[in-house]
């Protein structure tokens, strides 16, 4: 696609000049902080003795830190349950919208997308109140009909309640990505398939799903990144359920508390570095698997 190079003779240094501002800021705001954090993560600060170089000791400690491991485990569980559910819903909605079988399709599409425009802080506050035992409508309805409602903010429900908030926020976004990809499939393919006797489900499975693979990979990647850095929703719900959400509830919450409550800057740098590394590795594994399957 990018084979036809424009003549470098006539253009002088224009190419590097176009990319220079971006690359300069990228260097300053992306690579420098990472490098600085990597540097800090090699030290330890003690009240007695001050700051000393400890090599990879912070990383060794982090890998043995039960709070961090619990946090990572929890977001991994969250990822394994919430992401498939969310993407499945997004996929079903996108297929329904694309099928042309819906009345009010535009209203439905925009309505499902609207939560994406709601800041996660507002979404978490709002759902926190909705879950709440005092004036949450679910608890109100339960009281009215004398049915006991689950304690959504309790220990056993919390992760599910968080998953619901994230699902509510992002189904529409993923749906739009998938729907946009579906819209680019040439309509003649469907007509040809219909002439060959394929029904809507067969068309969905044989034509639409394979064509959606790049878009699904993209949504999956964004979901990996989103789940593993889960922070806003648990941070907000921590205000109303401090006994359930502890300082290490998610890995990112733990890194935050280390840096800003515990003042363990060096250790926090190591933890964020490690967390970023986990996310990058998981993402690339997904990309690799997805690409291999596509090429197979």
């Amino acid at each position: 696609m990018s084979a036809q190079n424009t003549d470098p003779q006539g253009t002088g240094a224009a190419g590097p000049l176009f990319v220079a501002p971006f690359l300069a800021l990228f260097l300053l705001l992306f690579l420098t902080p990472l490098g600085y954090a990597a540097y800090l993560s090699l030290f330890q600060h003690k009240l007695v003795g001050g700051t000393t170089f400890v090599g990879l000791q912070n990383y060794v400690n982090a890998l043995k830190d039960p709070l961090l491991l619990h946090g990572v485990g929890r977001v991994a569980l969250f990822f394994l349950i919430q992401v498939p559910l969310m993407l499945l819903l997004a996929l079903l909605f996108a297929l329904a919208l694309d099928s042309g079988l819906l009345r009010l399709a535009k209203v439905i599409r925009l309505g499902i997308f609207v939560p994406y425009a709601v800041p996660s802080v507002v979404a978490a506050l709002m759902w926190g109140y909705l879950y709440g035992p005092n004036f949450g409508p679910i608890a109100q309805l339960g009281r009215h009909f004398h049915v006991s409602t689950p304690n959504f903010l309790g220990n056993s429900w919390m992760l599910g309640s968080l998953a619901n908030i994230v699902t509510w926020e992002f189904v529409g976004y993923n749906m739009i990505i998938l729907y946009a990809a579906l819209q680019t499939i040439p309509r003649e393919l469907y007509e040809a398939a219909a002439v060959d006797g394929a029904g809507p489900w067969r068309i969905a499975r044989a034509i639409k799903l394979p064509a959606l693979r790049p878009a699904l990979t993209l949504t999956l990647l964004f979901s990996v990144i989103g789940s593993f850095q889960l922070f806003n929703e648990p941070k907000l719900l921590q205000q109303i359920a401090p006994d359930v959400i502890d300082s290490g509830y998610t890995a990112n919450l733990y890194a935050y508390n280390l840096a800003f409550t515990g003042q363990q800057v060096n250790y926090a740098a190591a933890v964020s570095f490690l967390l970023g590394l986990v996310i990058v590795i998981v993402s690339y594994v997904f990309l690799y698997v997805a690409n291999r399957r596509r090429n197979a």
Partner: protein
Amino acid sequence: MTTTTPTSATPRADAPSRPRTRLTGSRRNRLDRRSTPLTIAMLAALAYFLVPLLWLVVSSTKSTQDLINTFGLWFSHAPQLLGNIHDTLTQDNGVFVQWLLNTVMYAGVSAVGAAFLAAAAGYGFAKYRFRGHGAAFGLVVGTIMVPATALAIPTYLLFAQVHLVDTPWAVILPSLINPFGLYLMRIYTQDAVPDSLIEAARIDGAGEARIFFTIALRLLGPGLVTVLLFTLVSTWNNYFLPLIMLNNPRLYPVTVGLSSWAAQAQNGGAGSSSTMLPLVVTGSLLSIIPLVVAFLLLQRYWQSGLATGAVKQ
């Protein structure tokens, strides 16, 4: 995803055995394309997404007493939306208005800056070849997976050294770099700006900068708006970065401000801060209106832009 490979092979094998039933099925569909059961099912799904927002609208008309004593999804007998809005906007000498303005400023500057930087660099990578071209692009795209929040604490530590924390720049600068935006703009440029057009402009004597600003930028419009809109949303909704970067409440964006109010409403219990609860709810409603309106007005742009990102990889 695992099932698609085997099933895509099966139709060829068994399709001839049942074309007749399939044909009548598709013919019926063609006569009556709209499906009422499917529409009803999707409207039920739509309710799940809209009912919380309905709750927010209804609740912002209520006093603390009515929030607790009346049913959440319907109005009370004494609606006081305007009173709540007035209280929200005047609490603490109008700090909420300041938060909204901060958010508009942070998000606006970040979005315009990020879109412009990504467009220029995407154009540069798409239309020129230079030394280090592949390596530089690969480096940037390789960091698409690096999550913003994993970068935030390192950025904070660095900014603390150079005294940038607790200034607006601490929130704006990190939002200017959007590796996915660069990637999107490069792909978009390849499709939207033909090489022949650039060549023609060169032959007419236009300089490289002039070609970019007067010809390419215009053709890149939809892609530009997409990056702009999505940076706008992510900065508008950002919580982690301003939370760690800012201490001065007058600098807060609306997300951090609202969560600090929510903490006050929570910690104060029913007594002194019982007046805070309607402010949190009404403030939440006020803070989402601008983005929702922006998305509805600009849907033509972001939908086409998303399609570009979703299809090409």
